[in-house]
């Protein structure tokens, strides 16, 4: 990144520089102020949820304010222990599925994406269209056939239906994502390598993959978040409560005919946000480690 301040520093006398700096700082302060205010507005629902998770359950809907009048951790304690297993059990199940899905998507989708982005083969356009087409059908109408398929395979109440398809690149979204990213990489890189005698596997693993860190990070983060939050397929394929995951467990707190445990639900929702937020925090530095920060400088 070019830095304005460094550029301006040379050839200015002290007072002029101070004035410029002051102006700059004012501008920056304003930027920050706007960004923070905007952030707070964006976060209001989340803050409300956190605040509610700390209120005694009976007063969550009776009390309007954002600041709790009395703080209790009962919802966390009760929520953690309310279900068949401690909540950690569901976090663990979700973590296993999510980890499998992330690895599967990274491997399978990047392979497919390389072929679509860099290689020539017959009917490429057709297959690309098919690939995009598979994203277009809503999940709900394939659910029953999928269930039959997986139950014929004996996969109901195992994690296979949620993990194996990822290793077979069924999330075409990410293939498309990586195709688009790879296509922003100048082709002379791999052509040079090709002339140097490198094979496609070498180009893929040594050039494209390292240069696609942002795309891979995006894939990893999105897969993580979507799998972590996915409800319907986990509900359908995992009916045994021992196999329940976080989204399914969270809904166990609710009953539309009344008697929902809103307090524990909010508390566990806050906890369930932890891993995805953590993963995002950890992963986001790779998001920006593109060409800009790699050896190409």
């Amino acid at each position: 990144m070019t830095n304005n301040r460094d550029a301006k520093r040379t050839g200015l006398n002290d007072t002029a520089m101070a004035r410029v700096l002051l102006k700059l700082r004012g501008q920056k302060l304003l930027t920050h102020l706007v960004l923070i205010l905007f952030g707070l507005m964006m976060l209001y629902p989340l803050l409300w949820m956190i605040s509610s998770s700390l209120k005694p359950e009976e007063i969550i809907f009776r009390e309007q304010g954002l600041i709790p009048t009395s703080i209790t951790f009962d919802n966390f304690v009760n929520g953690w222990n309310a279900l068949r297993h401690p909540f950690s059990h569901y976090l663990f199940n979700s973590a296993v599925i999510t980890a499998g899905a992330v690895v599967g998507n990274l491997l399978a989708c990047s392979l497919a994406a390389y072929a679509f982005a860099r290689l020539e083969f017959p009917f490429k356009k057709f297959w690309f269209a098919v690939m995009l087409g598979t994203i277009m059908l809503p999940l709900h109408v394939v659910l029953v056939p999928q269930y039959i398929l997986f139950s014929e395979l004996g996969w109901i109440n195992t994690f296979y239906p949620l993990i194996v398809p990822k290793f077979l690149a069924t999330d075409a979204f990410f293939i498309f994502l990586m195709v688009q990213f790879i296509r922003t990489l100048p082709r002379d890189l791999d052509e040079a390598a090709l002339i140097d005698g490198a094979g496609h596997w070498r180009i893929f693993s040594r050039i494209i993959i390292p240069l696609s860190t942002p795309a891979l990070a995006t894939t990893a983060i999105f897969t993580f978040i979507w799998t972590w939050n996915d409800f319907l397929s986990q509900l359908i394929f995992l009916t045994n409560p021992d196999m329940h995951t976080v989204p399914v467990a969270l809904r166990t707190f609710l009953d539309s005919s009344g008697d929902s445990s809103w307090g524990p639900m909010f508390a566990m929702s806050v906890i369930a946000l932890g891993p995805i937020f953590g993963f995002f925090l950890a992963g986001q530095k790779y998001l920006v480690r593109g060409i800009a920060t790699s050896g190409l400088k």
Partner: protein
Amino acid sequence: MTTHTKRLTRRVLPALAVVGAMTLTACGGGDSGGDGSDGGDVTLRVAWWGSDERQRITEEAIAKFEEQNEGIKIQPEYSTFDAYYDQLTTQVASNDAPDVFAVEIRRLGELARGGVMADLDGLVGTDDLNQELLESGAIDGVQYGIPTGANAFAVMANTKVFEDAGIDLPDDTSWTWEDYMELSAELTDTTDSGLYGTQISNNDAFLKIFAAQRGEAFYGEGELAVSEETVTDWFAYQLEQIDEGATPDGPRSVEIGENVETSLVATNTGAMGMWWTNQLGTLTAGSGEEVELLRMPSDAGAQTGGMFLQPTMFWTVSGNSAKQEAAGKLVDFLVNDPEAGAIMGSDRGLPMNSSVLDSIRDGLPEADVKSLAFIDDISDETDVPPTALPGGAGEIPNLLKRYSEEVYFERMTPQEAAAAFITEANSVLS
């Protein structure tokens, strides 16, 4: 047009799946985990919906059952109500239904007529059960479902809001719909802004009672029996409640919806509302105040009070289950065993087995004691419980809600909405 047999229904999709299975044989090892029957043990899959509390006590009761019946293992499957039927129907369509599962009355008829459920005659003891209520689980003389318990739909009043307004609770033995509206409007006027007399209910039980008072049944054979005039008057009454300020305005009413915890009575922002008796506990806990049960109002010339006992839900056994005997044993235990009754209390409605009820009566929570007393009180006035509803009845509540909303926002007149509602309902019902 649909002349195919059921056999085909269940075969075509598996056939499609087999193609996939063959291509994947390498990966597809193992049996589906749940129904292993090693060493003569029987594993029953049991499904129900509900929140964490119901899940906890049901599992506790199940553990008791497993203790008493060596060789039978229970594999519970549960989810929240909204997701329950997604799961269940997927399994039913895939020929993989749980051995025992709960359904509500609106879906019982449809599933039973679809050949999904087993005849429970001889599998479950029914002698001590309330025979009138038991009837509601029978279709054409075959007992497909055993009711878990009963509820009544009633008016509930937050005494604190009444007290603060300086208004006495009404005499519910004689009040009319006009009284209900006037009282609600008065409560809204005399209390602070932000407090309301009542909130809208578009529950089909309300309309059922409203119709019964005019001598009309809600459902007939595969269609609605309620008259267009009655539905028109009912919609008009809802609209008038909004116009008179008895309830919040249209958008607010929609926002409040049917959620019990966020209802006006539960948040001390409204005096009255209509709910099922098993929701009294939640309302009381939410508001932190006394909530009283009141009879539904009725007009002077009414033929009946119209109130009725509703089976809260039914236990049923899958018609495909190879373990129907064990499944019947479990259902029998859940509805007839005093120990099970003591653990589960009134969670699935007030128990309808007289001996179970007697044995747990003293241990019931306060709200249940109140509900029980109320149901005893009105027992002379109640109509017979509903019998199994036509197919498609599960969609009627949403339909009713949608047309109610068309009326609140004056996109349709009550007359138009009633006509459209009846037409659409009859096209859905079978």
